[in-house]
């Protein structure tokens, strides 16, 4: 099965259907198997939100092909009363809407799970140990949707109704979700709600509940929002006052820019209808980052967003940004590489090459958001940092975080004023009588700059990627070059103190520590809870949030005997950066737990490895 992990064959046990009296409440996962381009996305998101509206913590993951229409797609919804939102390997309820994969899909289920499918598929033939609910989808759809060309779409809502009924989700929750989805489109709302009801009615009349899975009302989602990481990051950028956006479309970063554009259009047009921003669809990623640097140099808060191949194309310009010390924010929503790789699968494998992106002793500052909330916060903070540090700042998210919907606390308004960094005005220059662009006046490695247009005869300086001295003059002198290069290291050390510090959980007394970052967080948290539950072992956990690493990372490693570095790549890239940063006698403590098959990491995989490695 395309959506399961490697080793997971189906465990077809002979043991019969589970006792329906045994209740599994608010803790299971649903997988909807469809065909992409068939419009199942809104149905899935209605289902997700219906559960959310029941107050039950929920998460959704879309597993789609790099293709526009006609290929298999899976959408997984996890309801978790404990609030776990990572991917779960085990599927409890299958909605098999894709004839092509249906057989494989049902064969992948564990014993005691549930399958809902079109009756013509006759899936019960394959599994006696799975609760089967055949549904005549086409018939039900035809009855509620007279217009034939809409039926393909509307059919998806029928399964929402069936599932809602079987899980005992309140119709009012579904209706509220639908109302939001179809906002002001009453006709569409009616049609779709009709389909949902028809599905539910069919289920009520013809399906007798034989499975244990139920949604019961809780109060764990009140006040929460649902958003994807890309929208959150775009929102952060807009609140950071981004003014120039240059980009080139690439999955999975496209929606980050598209969300940014939507927000800009809404919130950043003056009363006279003028734009306080410029968005350029560049001709490629080389141009996109060139524009970002040109704009950053001339004083704009500028950004681009891309993914692996685009990051590679930005290598030369990134080095220019580093050496000429120009601000600019680059979002990298990571997908699976190398090369084109699997564009619709997630990964954390750009970390190392981004840290050293460009030839010749270049090093970059990287932010690592670990939730949609941090996508917003770092999407904002990246702009302060890039202008403060006068160096490109990369924000590494990933497909899982960026393109999937996540529950979150609402975002907090960033009250502090924008930090525009060390910029000299004409008045400053009058006072100072001039300035040396690349001199380390304050000892933090950061020079003062002026913006083009500053009305002072001594404002101008010459920006170049070639050798320059502290006055921005051209040089090939060894001592001038050394001065700049050493200062850049000082600046990098300043960055250490300015980037978001890691988040640590645990009582700090465990002998074992875990380090992870980004979207791995959800699975790590769950795995550590399980470790405690199943093995009574407590570990401390540090989620790093930026490169270069802050001092606390060193302290965390120093205060533990063994450190497991969990990440979603093959080459242990986070562990590598740690190894390079840590004293060697500390680096010896690092052990890697890697997950890199393109699917989001899950708690079970981590737990298994931890247990083996710790010999539990």
């Amino acid at each position, binding site marked *: 099965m395309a959506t399961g992990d490697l080793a997971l064959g189906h465990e077809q046990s002979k043991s019969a259907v589970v006792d329906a009296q045994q209740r599994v409440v608010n803790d299971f996962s649903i997988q909807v198997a469809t065909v992409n381009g068939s419009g199942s996305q809104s149905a899935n998101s209605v289902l997700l939100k219906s559960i959310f509206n029941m107050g039950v913590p929920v998460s959704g993951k879309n597993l789609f092909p790099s293709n526009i229409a006609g290929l298999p797609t899976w959408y997984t919804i996890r309801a978790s009363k404990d609030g776990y939102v990572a991917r779960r390997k085990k599927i409890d309820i299958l909605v098999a809407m894709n004839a092509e994969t249906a057989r494989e899909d049902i064969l992948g289920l564990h014993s005691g799970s549930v399958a809902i499918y079109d009756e013509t598929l006759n899936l019960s033939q394959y599994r006696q140990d799975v609760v089967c609910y055949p549904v005549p989808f086409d018939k039900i759809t035809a009855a509620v949707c007279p217009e034939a060309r809409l039926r393909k779409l509307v059919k998806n809502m029928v399964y929402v109704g069936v599932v809602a009924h079987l899980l005992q989700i309140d119709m009012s929750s579904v209706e509220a979700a639908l109302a939001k989805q179809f906002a002001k489109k009453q006709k569409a709302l009616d049609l779709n709600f009709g389909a949902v009801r028809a599905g539910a009615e069919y289920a009520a009349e013809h399906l007798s509940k034989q499975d244990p899975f139920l949604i019961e009302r809780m109060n764990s989602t009140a006040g*929460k929002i649902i958003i994807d990481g890309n929208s959150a990051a775009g929102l952060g950028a807009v609140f950071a006052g981004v003014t120039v956006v240059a980009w080139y479309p690439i999955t999975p970063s496209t929606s980050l820019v598209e969300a940014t554009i939507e927000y800009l259009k809404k919130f950043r047009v003056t009363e006279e209808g*003028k734009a*306080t921003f410029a968005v350029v669809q560049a001709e490629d990623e*080389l*141009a996109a980052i060139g524009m970002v640097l*040109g704009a950053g140099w001339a*004083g*704009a808060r500028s950004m681009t967003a891309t993914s692996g191949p685009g990051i590679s194309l930005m290598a030369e310009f990134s080095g220019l940004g580093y050496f000429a010390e120009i601000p600019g924010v680059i979002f990298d929503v990571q997908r699976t590489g190398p090369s084109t790789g699997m564009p619709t699968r997630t990964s954390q494998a750009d970390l190392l090459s981004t840290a050293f992106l460009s030839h010749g002793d270049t090093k970059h500052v990287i932010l690592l958001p670990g939730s949609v909330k941090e996508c917003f916060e770092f999407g904002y903070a990246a702009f302060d940092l890039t202008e403060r540090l006068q160096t490109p700042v990369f924000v590494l998210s990933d497909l899982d975080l960026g393109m999937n919907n996540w529950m979150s606390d609402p975002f907090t308004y960033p009250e502090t004023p924008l930090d525009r960094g060390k910029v000299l005005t004409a008045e400053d220059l009058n006072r100072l009588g001039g300035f040396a662009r690349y001199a380390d006046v304050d000892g933090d490695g950061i020079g003062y700059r002026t913006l083009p247009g500053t*009305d002072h005869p001594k404002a101008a300086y*010459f920006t170049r990627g070639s050798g320059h001295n502290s006055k921005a003059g051209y040089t090939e002198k060894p001592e001038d070059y050394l001065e700049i290069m050493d200062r850049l290291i000082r600046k990098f050390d300043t960055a250490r103190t300015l980037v978001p510090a890691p988040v640590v959980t645990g009582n700090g007394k465990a002998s074992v520590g875990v380090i992870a970052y980004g979207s791995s967080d959800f699975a790590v948290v769950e795995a550590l809870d399980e470790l405690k539950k199943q093995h009574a072992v407590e570990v401390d956990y540090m989620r790093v949030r930026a490169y270069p690493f802050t001092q606390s990372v060193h302290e965390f490693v120093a205060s533990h005997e063994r450190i497991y570095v969990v990440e979603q790549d093959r080459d242990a890239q986070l562990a590598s950066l740690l190894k390079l940063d840590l004293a060697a006698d500390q680096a010896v403590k690092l052990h890697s737990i890697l997950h890199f098959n393109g699917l989001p990491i899950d708690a079970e995989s981590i737990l298994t490895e931890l247990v083996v490695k710790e010999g539990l």
Partner: protein
Amino acid sequence: MATATATPTGTPGPKVNRIGLPVLEYRGGKTTLCAGCGHNAISERIIDALFEMGVQPERVMKLSGIGCSSKSPAYFLSRAHSFNSVHGRMPSVATGAVLANHTMMALGVSGDGDTASIGMGQFVHMMRRNLPMIYIIEDNGVYGLTKGQFSATADIGSKLKTGVINDLPAIDTCAMAIQLGATFVGRSFSGDKKQLLSMLKAAVAHKGTVMLDVISPCVTFNDHEGSTKSYKFMQEHDEPINELGFVPSFEEIDIEYDAGTTTDVTMHDGSSLRLRKLREDFNPTDRVGSVRTLMEAHENGEILTGVFYIDTAKPTFTDLLNLVDRPLGTQPESVTKPSAAVLQKVMAGLQ
């Protein structure tokens, strides 16, 4: 110098221009290019043009790629910010800079290698966008800085000092620029002071992409017999297609206008550009005709110079973006950072 006004008092100070600056304030660092390099002459003409037009140096952004030509911004207008970027990618940097501050004049200097070889992709898209800036190609048909390999503007059949003959057709950056959407396109010769100066002054008055291909001999690697970009070859083959008379907005126009022989263009800032036809039937406002004329000349081995195309009406890229007046780069936080209430509304919508 027509545009310079005398200093107010009778003291014999240096000649100053209409904003009271002497030409010295338009100079740059000492050139490190070869003595006699065409690029130096172009720098001189840029200095003259900006001085005569009375451009405030601080209102200019200089941009370049990499090459001998791309070093030039260091040799004029020290009082302007400058960005010597990476090879072939200046157009994107310029685009970003112009978006961040569209109130300034952007002046880009590139080379034929920088533009027509590695830079072709960005060049095409900049022209297409009609980005408001002056883009000068200092065109010597070779890569000067890497010691004389052919560039993509080298003419077919032209010969290197080493005897190697170019067997690929030259790219005509002017024909391309016109076709793609640039709105002021011309070719000149670094050795033609008068034409180049007029063209540069007109360029300053234009709003939109000005693309000037200036033949600029490389005395070290491409000024020999067999080169089609040498001083000698240009002196013998330069065929001006029109004669430029530029009258800046701050001067009186006093010459008579004859529709039959002259095209009169009123520029964005009120200046006037008179193009006296040196060729029957050539009309610099006709895109198709201009490209045809250039292609034909090329097939006949002629090197036309002059203003090939001008369009003062087409919206620029910043027009299309409908930007606020004040530069994006210096918008205050109150404008760029939405309020807490806005965030609350967004959050509410996501619940």
